[in-house]
């Protein structure tokens, strides 16, 4: 056998061909009695959650009645579930939270202080000191 093959799975590049939003499911937990759910109950009564669910048709919405503080659970396709506490938040703040977290990738946020983040090789290549003419080469 001249060449042997090593099996490698290809890497997904979301957005290069098709884009599929990483958040696929949101569970909305509310309490019918507690004061901390007032904002969320307002949204539910006004039918705003229905409207949001229709706009974000690519996300499954699940509304659960449960005692305790209200929360939003975001399920992402990298098996991450983020539980966001929305106790005592006003209606518009909850809508903001929904918008913000439904657009996330599910990965942890990190400080990015490099020029480029890429899985591709450099197009230009790496500079080499040894590829200059001999007369111009740096000598130690």
């Amino acid at each position, binding site marked *: 056998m001249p*060449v*042997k*093959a090593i099996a490698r*799975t290809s890497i997904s*590049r979301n957005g290069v*061909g*098709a884009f599929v939003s990483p958040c696929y499911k949101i569970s909305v937990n509310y309490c019918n009695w507690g004061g901390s759910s007032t904002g969320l109950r307002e949204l539910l009564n006004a039918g705003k959650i229905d409207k949001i669910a229709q706009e974000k048709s690519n996300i499954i919405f699940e509304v659960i009645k449960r005692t305790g503080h209200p929360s939003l659970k975001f399920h992402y396709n990298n098996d991450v579930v983020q539980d966001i506490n929305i106790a005592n938040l006003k209606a518009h703040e909850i809508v903001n939270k929904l918008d913000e977290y439904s657009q996330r990738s599910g990965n942890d946020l990190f400080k990015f202080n490099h020029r480029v983040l890429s899985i591709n090789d450099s197009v230009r290549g790496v500079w080499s000191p040894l590829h200059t003419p001999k007369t111009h080469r740096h000598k130690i």
Partner: protein
Amino acid sequence: MLRRSMIVKDLARVSRLRGLMSIPQPRHYSQPSKAVNQQINLQHYENLNQSTSSFQAKYDNIQDYGSYKHNVFTHRLPESTASQSPPLVALHSRLNLSSQYSLSTLSQALNLNKFDDGLANNYGLNILGKNLLSYYVSEYLLVKYPRLPMPIHNVAVDSLMGSKALYQIGKIWGIEVDKSSKLDKYLSQESEFLKYGKLRYLTEERLDNNEAESGVYELSSEEITNLKSNNNTASSSSFISDEVEAYGSAVRAIIGGLYTHQGEEITKQFIQDHILSRKLLLENMFEFSQPTRELVRLCDKLNFQDPIDIRLIAETGRLSSHAIYVVGVFCGVEKLGEGVGSSMNEAKTRAVVNALMSYYLYSPIDNEGNEVKVPSDKDYKYLDGIVGLGDVAI
């Protein structure tokens, strides 16, 4: 009172179902006389008369073949029921499918169970999708990398449309597995529509033996045989679990469904967007055993007149602990490859491998510098260099 009676009634129904599920497996007796053995088998099959076999065949007498009747009638999910399933509607929207693609087909693509609730399964769609995928994927690879050696080509096809890749794609699409049994569904008052949008591959029997601990589960008989055959031949890393296989099947079936509803053009676009857009790690797939010898054989085959020679291009720090050598592989005045290493030998090997890779990973372009069209494109023109010359043998 009424509610309790309902529960009791339904529990009775569930237990009856469980009774049906726990079919006694045919036992292998340690060879008594043949007649006895046959008798036992007959008894076993007569038990099956209570419509418990997978085909649910009924008969008056086992030896009277004329009396055999199959009474499994599969049907498709009505569109009105399918449209009430939130995961199904969300999946349809996530994949940007047009309204021509019916939700009932999508639900069928997610059903792998043979005889569950009489709903049609994805067997046919899966085969259709598999053939479409292998056509477009191999066409893409053969035209884009015409000189890829056969083993690398096979692994590259697997890397794009193997079960593991399709499993990842299914996960990205947000497909969930239906992991609750009928009893669990009843007790948690889960809406019956939810399951139509989930991946159904676990039989009721396996659903009942819920995971004791998350991540720990009992292997099915197919998985055990798969694992055993893997242990005998190659590394166990090639083991593919039922879940991975099921995701792959669902993704293929969804592609098959797209073809049946919207035709070839749309399916091709879908495959390009979701599968061919993934990054192929071709450079990491090569494993050379004797690279220098292979390069010499390759140059022989290509009728290069001059012999291969390896020359030192530059070096630094020969007497230090961190020497660097730059070595080139030449054929006459043509440089075929170049490598950098901390010893002459390493640099030489890298240079030879680099030369081989630049031959194997050649990708043709047309006169305007664009990527070459594949035969299924509209105005495809045959170009030289699209058909490879075949592999070399050492």
